[in-house]
């Protein structure tokens, strides 16, 4: 694999964004360019992923400064996989945005900022440098802030203020952690830190750094009791934005957990227990929160929290089975959560509301659409053999292996409540007769928009549903990948070797 390919998923999104900036007011062209560009991005990331699978870990040094002195970008199975999923979700949301986001928003830089957000996500997944990771987080935060506020509705601003404040707090804590680590090791390169940290005598500071990372990333990945920003903000922006948020933002936090706590703090028992405890409470809180909501978007927001717990619990248990569970859940969850918010957007366009009380009768009016939204909904529940089922085997297995019965209980609790909540949503949206309440005046409903636009609404949901179905029915393939990632995480030597001693530079 040519190492330069690793830059491209990042760089291409930037170029795309710049091109879109030059098309500032030409909304129609922006739509076309964004969709075409997102398709190219999928091809690029697919190439990166397949080549990484084939040739092993690839690295590239920015400016050709040798590691650990410069900034390394690393494409291992986990990173390239997440980049691929980001691009897929990005494509779906780009198509959905072209139909659903209003022209006014598009004239104020929606698409450029959206693509820079994707760049930030890809950068965060690919970087092998701790401070660079912080910088990508900055990109993600500022882009999400702009996307949340774009439109300047009152509730958008309220959500944005909470989102921004808490995420900045997370960044500051993260930065403090970086400072401590840099003070101890004099290095920012993850692989280098991984080697050096073992030799540090002052374990106290190492442990403190671990706690700082736990809280900093915990806020980002919406772990109990640090998740406040998520339910406060996710329901406020346009659904296309919520979709990319719901699918990917919290997952960056999960990814950071996976990297940091396997590469740097692998042996820290306190952190493991902390992760497990937090994860159990996250599952419970998310499920309880979702149960009482009436706004579809809020239901989905709390379900994000709940299922973040599923992934964190795997990191906490820390066995190979557990990592495999976390990774396969991650794959499933990115696709399905993105899709769910798109579904919420579609339902809003059809019924003019996302309140479970007012929507209904979807089946009578649109039987095919009902069948379509059944895919993400029941994949989320994990009705076998749909995608949400398979990771549970690994997670349940890891809980049994380690005799963590609280974890087993929490997983069961979360699964059952998810089932009940989804069934409730189904009964309310698809079965129930529509309420007599009229949609807001002047809102253009689904059956009044042009056929082309309707297709753009449905197509991304079809795309992501197909991916979900593949994750479910092609489970063997997904499990192989997840197993490979888990093995890499348990034994990060290959990662370290690839970064510090790339071909040509012999290892000591």
């Amino acid at each position, binding site marked *: 694999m040519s190492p330069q390919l690793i830059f491209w998923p990042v760089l291409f999104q*930037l170029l795309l964004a710049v091109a879109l900036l030059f098309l500032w007011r030409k909304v129609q062209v922006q739509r076309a360019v964004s969709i075409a560009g997102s398709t190219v991005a999928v091809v690029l990331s697919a190439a990166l992923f397949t080549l990484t699978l084939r040739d092993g870990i690839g690295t590239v040094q*920015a*400016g050709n400064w040798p590691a650990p*002195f410069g900034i390394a970008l690393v494409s291992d199975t986990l990173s390239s996989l997440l980049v691929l999923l980001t691009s897929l979700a990005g494509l779906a949301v780009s198509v959905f945005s072209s139909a*659903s986001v*209003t022209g*006014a*928003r598009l004239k104020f*830089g929606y698409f*450029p*900022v959206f693509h820079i957000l994707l760049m930030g996500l890809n950068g965060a997944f690919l970087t092998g440098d701790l*401070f*660079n990771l912080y*910088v990508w987080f*900055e990109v993600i935060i500022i*882009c999400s*802030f*702009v996307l949340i*506020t*774009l*439109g*300047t*509705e009152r509730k958008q601003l309220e959500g944005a203020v909470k989102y921004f404040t808490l995420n900045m707090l997370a960044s500051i804590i993260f930065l*403090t952690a970086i400072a*401590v680590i840099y*003070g*101890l090791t*004099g*290095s920012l390169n993850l692989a280098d830190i991984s080697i050096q940290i073992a030799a*540090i005598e*002052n374990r106290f500071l190492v*442990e*403190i750094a671990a*706690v*700082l990372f736990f*809280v900093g990333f915990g*806020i980002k990945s919406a772990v109990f*009791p*640090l998740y*406040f*920003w998520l339910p406060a903000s996710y329901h406020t922006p*346009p659904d296309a934005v919520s979709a990319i948020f719901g699918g990917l933002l919290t997952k960056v936090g999960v990814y950071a957990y996976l990297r940091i706590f396997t590469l740097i703090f692998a042996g820290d028992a306190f952190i493991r227990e902390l992760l497990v405890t937090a994860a159990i409470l996250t599952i419970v809180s998310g499920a*309880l929160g979702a*149960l*009482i909501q009436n706004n579809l978007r809020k239901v989905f927001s709390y379900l994000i929290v709940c299922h973040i717990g599923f992934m964190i619990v795997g990191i906490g248990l820390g066995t190979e089975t557990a990592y495999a569970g976390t990774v396969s859940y991650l794959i499933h969850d990115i696709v399905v959560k993105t899709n769910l918010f798109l579904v919420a957007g579609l339902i*809003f366009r059809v019924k003019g509301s996302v309140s479970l009380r007012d929507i209904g009768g979807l089946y009578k009016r649109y039987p095919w659409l009902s069948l379509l939204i059944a895919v993400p909904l029941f994949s989320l529940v994990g009705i*076998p053999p749909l995608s949400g089922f*398979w990771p549970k*085997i690994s997670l*349940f*297995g890891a809980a*049994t292996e380690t005799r963590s*019965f609280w974890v087993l209980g929490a997983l*069961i609790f979360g*699964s059952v409540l998810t089932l009940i909540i989804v069934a409730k949503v189904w*009964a309310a949206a698809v*079965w*129930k007769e529509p309420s007599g309440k009229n949609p807001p005046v002047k809102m253009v409903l689904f059956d009044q928009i042009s056929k082309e636009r309707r297709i753009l609404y449905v197509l991304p949901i079809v795309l992501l549903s197909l991916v979900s179905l593949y994750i479910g029915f092609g*489970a063997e393939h997904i499990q*192989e990948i997840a197993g490979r990632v888990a093995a890499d995480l348990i034994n990060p030597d290959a990662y370290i070797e690839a970064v510090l001693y790339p071909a040509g530079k012999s290892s000591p």
Partner: protein
Amino acid sequence: MLTAVLSGFVAALVLPRVMHVLPRLQNLLWIAVPLGLCAWFATKIPAVARGEVLRESVAWVPSLGVNLDFVIDGLSLLFALMITGIGSLVFIYTSAYMKGHRELDKFYAYLSMFMASMLGLVLADGLMLMFVFWELTSISSFFLIGFKNSEEASRKSALTALAVTGVGGMGLLAAAVIAKSAMGTDSLEALSASGEILREGPLSGLLIALVFLAAFTKSAQFPFHFWLPGAMKAPTPVSTYLHSATMVKAGIFLLLRFSPGLNGAPLWNDALMIVGGFTMAYAAVTALFKTDMKSILAYTTISALGVLTFLIGIGTSAALTAALVFILVHATYKATLFLVTGIVDHETGTRDVTALRGLRKVMMPVAAAAVIAALSSAGLPLSFGFIGKDLIYESTLEFWGNGALNLGLVLTAVALITNVFLLHAGFVVGIRPFSGKMPDRFSDLHLPSPLMWVPPLILAVLCLLFGLVPALLESGIVHPSLAALGFEAEPALKLWHGFNTVLLLSGVTLALGTAVYFAVRPSEKLEAALDRWAHISPETVFRKGSHLFRLFSRKWTLFFQNGYLRYYVLMILIVLTGLIGSRMSGAIDLNVNILTLLNLSAYEIAIAILLIIGITVTVFTGSRLTAVLGMGVVGYSICLFFVFYSAPDLAMTQFTIDTLTVILFVLVLYRLPRYLKLSDMRSRARDWVIASVFGFMLTLIALAAVEEGTNRETSEYYADNAYLLAKGKNIVNVILVDFRGTDTMVEIVVLGVAAVGVFSLLKLRLKKPDVK
């Protein structure tokens, strides 16, 4: 076998799509599916009767150990024949019952999906694979119960059923995982072959408990039974097929599969006898008070499931023979009664047994089927039910023979009570609506299409046939099933055992039951009497419990997510402080040399004082402008430290940034009003304490970090190479634009995005209808 299982799913997917091409063949095509499968399974009878076990295995997800391993032995064949046989009759019946329904295809598709899942469930060898199909039966049941989806009651019942069986399903998954990871295999064959692992292996207690949870929820055992009467909201073919004949027996099937391995473990037998025994008596007595035909049948179904659990709990060869036979007995007569109820409902529009009389005059064949089924349910000699009942009494009486007199007495008494009330219920549904004088309003009724009354009649004939010639089932079905449960074939099933205690008990049952039938007329009064106890019924407990649970959820959620940003920040800081504190208390090893720290020069002290003043002003001032200036002072003080500690490059950069920041802030904040004071003294004091503790801890960490010698490899590399390789004299600049140029580039992007954001915040106003 895989093809057999998949054909139902394929039919469910494909047939609705091709229907408009062949509208006339619609029903035929659907009916062909179960009929064909039934025939296919019937061809396996001879092989299985010879004692063969047929296997098929296809890899699916080997990484997780989930493969399509299917097994046909006696037990799975018995269930498979029941599923496809009754399925065929139900499919035929449906074609007339749901005639003209605009969603007939969807209905058939769900039924077909259910049938396929149920087949998969009974043929699966691995517990994990069984779980896959188990969940699919639950979800098909959800869709079928909620089929009349415009009715709120239907939707509620569907949800309740799904919730209860969903809990059990997760229990089964956990059991499968435990079997796999703690005991090394989830193959039912392997597990039951070595009962020792199951009985004494790691986590076996938990495994058994989870199996119970799964079986009791699915097979509606007390106290989880209440979803089943609710499930009767589904159209009658569904009630017949899923909620009486097949799906609810999945739990029984699971217990039967585990019985060879666990039989004899005390927890196993006692728990099953107690739960089954209580359920069967409780449900049979409850049925006495009901007036809706479907309700009565629902409770008698629960009771029958209790009988089966009870028999598996007894666990002797006789008891398991009884269980196997009773599964068939129940399936035949109960399905008949359900189908009959459907006809009555369909024709008269009511299922109220207090109103229905004399229907034999207008629907004789239906009445015949009903009466035969009722007699079989009563266990009258010559009916299939008689054999079933005999075997049940035989197995309870065995204890008597074995010296456990008291236990035998209790068990026999419970069985007797259950049978008496089951007989009563059977008569009320099967005989009462057809006997007596017909009210005039029913006189223009007529017999429905034969497609509706032939299926129950076929089943009724089977009730008689198997009763008269039990040998029909013996070698082909019952004995191989018994072999699958680990028992040698018992003496032949007999119609006549001679005069013995069992016969006496049968006689007593008949006499008592008939007496109750004539003494107690179903009436609304009776039903009202039962309702007086409704407040302690498990259903009420469940409803109240779920209500309380929702209240708790609300409290919990709103406690953490109360809407105030300041509270969120507070919470995060408390968590962080607490975590750092708990780690500090563990091993406080702060190697801080106070003396070297106190060795300060005058200008250091001066700057520190300046810094503290700056912070204090920022925190306590009421004016935003002053606060910004205070922050500026803090920034400058830090820059001065950089100057003194030989980092002039850094200081220059930092001075510029601080100056810019202050100017920008002043521009932006100039027009904003003064701060409002919203918090009271107490919350301020609290915040003050938390802030101080947090600050103190961070200071300690900083001190500890300073004391720790730093690895300077990276900074030395930068210093050495800034000029040589990067051709720059200012190291900070070289770091910013070359060594770590990527960071800088990305930060520039951040600024650009921020500019876009500011622009849209200032300029973009959505017109109201344009929102979203």
